[in-house]
């Protein structure tokens, strides 16, 4: 018989507001096995935990039930508490009376009754719990970083500096990501390339870092500490180890009309190209969609001019298989498509552009060599209108755009406005805003400087319609302070498009079995306390793939993710989840049903001797579970007809006891 202690948490008023915690503690006192019952304001606090520890010792408890928030929140906390008091941590069960009770019910009586049932259910389970001991597995001391933007670069550098090997997989021909496309960075206005490119070089030169550029993750198997990853190195038709990056081919290639995606299609590149001067690795890549030689076998100019003989038109995609102990997702973001927002005439006029396009227009290495010229006619614009929140902060019922605030737009718009006014005082700049959000160090000061020192007109209101009329853009919007509808003749309109996670993130998440939110941002293990970890063990999050972020935030999160990876790789062995399948060999008949459904191949068979009738010996084939591989899904337990296979911690009897307790 267990000696169970019940601990009912108030969670301030979060639980106590709709659940009579005293009554719950009182009611659960008389449940079978319960020898102690208490309630407290905050069980997860140190004092609360101490209360539990003291009770374990005082009442000689063999099991505890904590009626509190979701086990996803504090199960681990209370297990540690139990362990500290000498109780096996798996003798702890949580009754979720917050998320699944007090927060969803308004009626005190209803909430209290349900909380009692939930507590009773947990008690019924604990009565059947047995102490569990986790197994161990080794750790491969190498990390994989997926995405080579500033997030991936920083994470890789930090991990490598700690002495561990890191591979970066980047789908584009060069690392650098979005930051490489930016001109200046807020709020200090230092140039993005000046601070980013040295880091890119550091990556290239670091002996612990390998870059798989123009590559994608194809398949991920395994689990924390032991991932098996297959990487597809896409054919770039240039031998990476031979190309010197001299760039001669990119000048001689006769195919000149290839939209330059680095400049967002605002100018052209050749069919063989190096994205930009400081690319890492600095190797040419052939765009197979445009290359005449690859399309119809006619040309071959690049091969002729290449003195290093690096061109290889027969190159095929290659696959690399590698083992990793940890994986970091750093897949970044993109501005959303403006297709559904054509009231701003993005598809109708070349002079309506997104902020990222404006970034390239301002950049010295951009399509206009840094001169601010209208894309339609190359004329210098005298009146620019910036529109903020295009596609951000849209209610889901509006069925377009994103519900969240994209976070970076207010600041980069202030930056654009300021830089424009600074470089071209003859250009008038107006910004339509809903709110200006500048929570960050030196951020509000920066925005105010744009308005006060540089004379940027900030108008509270939103643009309703942009109409191209001749070579002007008529911007119709409201000025809520003046209570007027404005019609501004502008030369250039810049839209602060919402940002969204890169499209590659969703399939990657599936491969990693990492969870995502409805916006396709990776979910963190805990929104506050574990912000750089995925709930899936061994998967870490860096940068905007987890949520919109500016550069300083991205870099700090990248470092945090690296710290977590280092913490993992520094271990020689990992203790696993002890809630794994277990085969009762006396009952197993060796039918192989369990083996067939196991997604991890954790079940094998062995011939074992058993005592038969009349002192005979029988040899039977029985299932055995490799506890290091088993992840504890329990699929085998249902495939097993005899019930020989059971799951520790979620045993048939335990679940049945829960069912019974609920239905009582």
């Amino acid at each position, binding site marked *: 018989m267990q000696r169970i202690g019940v601990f009912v948490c108030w969670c301030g008023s979060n639980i106590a507001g709709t659940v009579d915690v005293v009554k719950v503690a009182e009611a659960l006192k008389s449940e079978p096995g319960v020898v102690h019952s208490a309630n407290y304001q905050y069980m997860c606090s140190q004092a609360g935990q101490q209360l539990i520890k003291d009770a374990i010792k005082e009442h000689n408890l063999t099991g505890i039930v904590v009626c509190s928030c979701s086990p996803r929140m504090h199960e681990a906390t209370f297990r540690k508490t139990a362990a500290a008091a000498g109780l096996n941590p798996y003798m702890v069960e949580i009754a979720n009376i917050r998320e699944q009770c007090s927060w969803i019910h308004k009626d005190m009586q209803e909430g209290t009754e349900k909380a009692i049932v939930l507590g009773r259910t947990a008690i019924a389970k604990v009565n059947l719990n047995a102490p569990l001991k986790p197994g161990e597995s080794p750790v491969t001391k190498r990390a994989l970083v997926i995405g080579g933007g500033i997030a991936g670069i920083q994470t890789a550098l930090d991990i490598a500096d700690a002495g561990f090997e890191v591979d970066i997989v980047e789908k584009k021909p060069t690392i650098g990501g979005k930051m490489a496309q930016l001109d200046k960075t807020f709020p200090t206005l230092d140039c993005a390339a000046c601070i980013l490119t040295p880091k890119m070089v550091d990556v290239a030169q670091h002996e612990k870092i390998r870059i798989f550029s123009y590559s994608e993750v194809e398949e991920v198997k395994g689990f924390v500490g032991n991932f098996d990853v297959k990487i597809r190195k896409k054919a770039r038709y240039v031998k990476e180890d031979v190309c010197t990056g001299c760039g001669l081919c990119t000048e001689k290639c006769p195919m000149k009309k290839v939209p330059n995606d680095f400049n967002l299609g605002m100018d052209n590149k050749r069919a063989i190209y190096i994205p930009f001067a400081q690319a890492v690795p600095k190797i040419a890549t052939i765009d197979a969609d445009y290359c005449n030689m690859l399309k119809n076998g006619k040309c071959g100019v690049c091969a002729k001019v290449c003195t290093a003989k690096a061109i290889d038109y027969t190159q095929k995609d290659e696959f690399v298989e590698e083992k990793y102990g940890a994986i970091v997702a750093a897949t970044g973001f993109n501005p959303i498509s403006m297709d*559904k927002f*054509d009231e701003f*005439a993005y598809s109708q006029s070349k002079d309506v552009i997104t902020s990222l396009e404006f970034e390239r227009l301002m950049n010295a290495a951009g399509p206009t060599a840094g001169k601010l010229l209208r894309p339609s006619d190359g004329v210098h614009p005298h009146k620019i209108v910036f529109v903020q929140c295009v596609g951000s902060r849209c209610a889901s019922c509006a069925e377009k755009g994103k519900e969240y605030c994209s976070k970076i737009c207010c600041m980069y718009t202030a930056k654009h406005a300021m830089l424009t006014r600074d470089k071209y005082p003859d250009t008038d700049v107006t910004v339509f805003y809903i709110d200006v959000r500048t929570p960050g160090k030196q951020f509000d000061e920066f925005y105010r400087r744009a308005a006060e020192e540089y004379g940027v007109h900030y108008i509270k209101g939103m643009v309703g*319609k*942009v*109409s191209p009329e001749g070579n002007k853009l008529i911007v119709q919007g409201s000025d809520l302070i003046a209570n007027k509808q404005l019609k501004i003749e502008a030369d250039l309109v810049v839209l602060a498009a919402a940002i969204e996670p890169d499209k590659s993130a969703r399939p990657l998440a599936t491969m990693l079995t990492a969870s995502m939110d409805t916006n396709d941002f990776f979910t963190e293990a805990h929104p506050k306390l574990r912000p750089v970890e995925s709930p899936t063990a061994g998967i870490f999050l860096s940068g905007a793939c987890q949520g919109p972020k500016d550069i300083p935030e991205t870099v700090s999160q990248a470092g945090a993710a690296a710290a977590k990876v280092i913490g993992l790789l520094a271990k020689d062995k990992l203790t696993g989840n002890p809630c794994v399948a277990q085969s009762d060999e006396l009952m197993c008949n060796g039918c192989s049903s369990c083996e067939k459904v196991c997604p991890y191949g954790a079940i094998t068979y062995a011939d074992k001797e058993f005592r038969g009738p009349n002192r005979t010996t029988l040899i039977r084939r029985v299932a055995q579970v490799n506890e290091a591989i088993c992840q504890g899904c329990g699929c085998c337990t249902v495939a097993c007809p005899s019930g020989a296979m059971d799951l520790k911690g979620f045993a048939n009897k335990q679940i049945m006891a829960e069912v019974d307790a609920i239905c009582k």
Partner: protein
Amino acid sequence: MKVSYFPGCTLKTKAKVLDEYARKCAEVLGVTLEEIDNWQCCGGVFTTANDEIATKLSSVRALKHANDKGQPLVSVCSACHNVLKQTNNAMQTDDGFNFRVNQYIAPDKYNGETEVIHYLELLRDKIGYEKVKEKVVNSLAGKKIAPYYGCLLLRPGKVMAMDDVENPTIMEDLIRAIGGEPVSYAFRNECCGGYITLESKELAKAKSKRVSDNAKLNGAEVIVTACPLCKYNLEKNGSDLPVVYITELLAEAFGIKE
């Protein structure tokens, strides 16, 4: 193919050509527009208040009539189409409205089963612009035509669901199919002033003029519309450009315009 057809009041009077050519062009394409028996006026505008029942019953009757025949319900007039489609949507999505309407029309029953489409959708989705193209005998080669959608054809976008609300192409593609050159301009989905013309000629004029000026500025030779009120407003309010109905243009291309 046979479809149910709701012409609407104006097509029987001031906009006879819109009606006449709609039928004739459909015939050319092998579609018969079967006019609904004893149809009643749709009311011209959809009242969005959900406690307005009686004003929407005439539309429900037309919708039910088409449903009884198992046909889609087609109209040409943008206003009629808008009212019919919004009423049908309310029947599908607003349980309270549906309940009360069914009380009125009992023992009949209707739950929004009818497919409500505009004449343009009939051409695009049921017939196909490829087939329209085949029937062209008199190509409008190179004629610069500004499609004018106005409001009612497209909005509310979630209900009308005909095309992208801000960047529609259904008329542009039709114009291309019959040989014309569509003129893109921002005001093609801005209001002409609508019924306000009764109340404030000035406002109607201001609205319409911006539309026609914008079309002209972008090189249009003619404006084409599906709505009699749009046509009226544009013509009355100083458009230098001729304004024609979409069915007139189609008839011209098919060589059946008198």
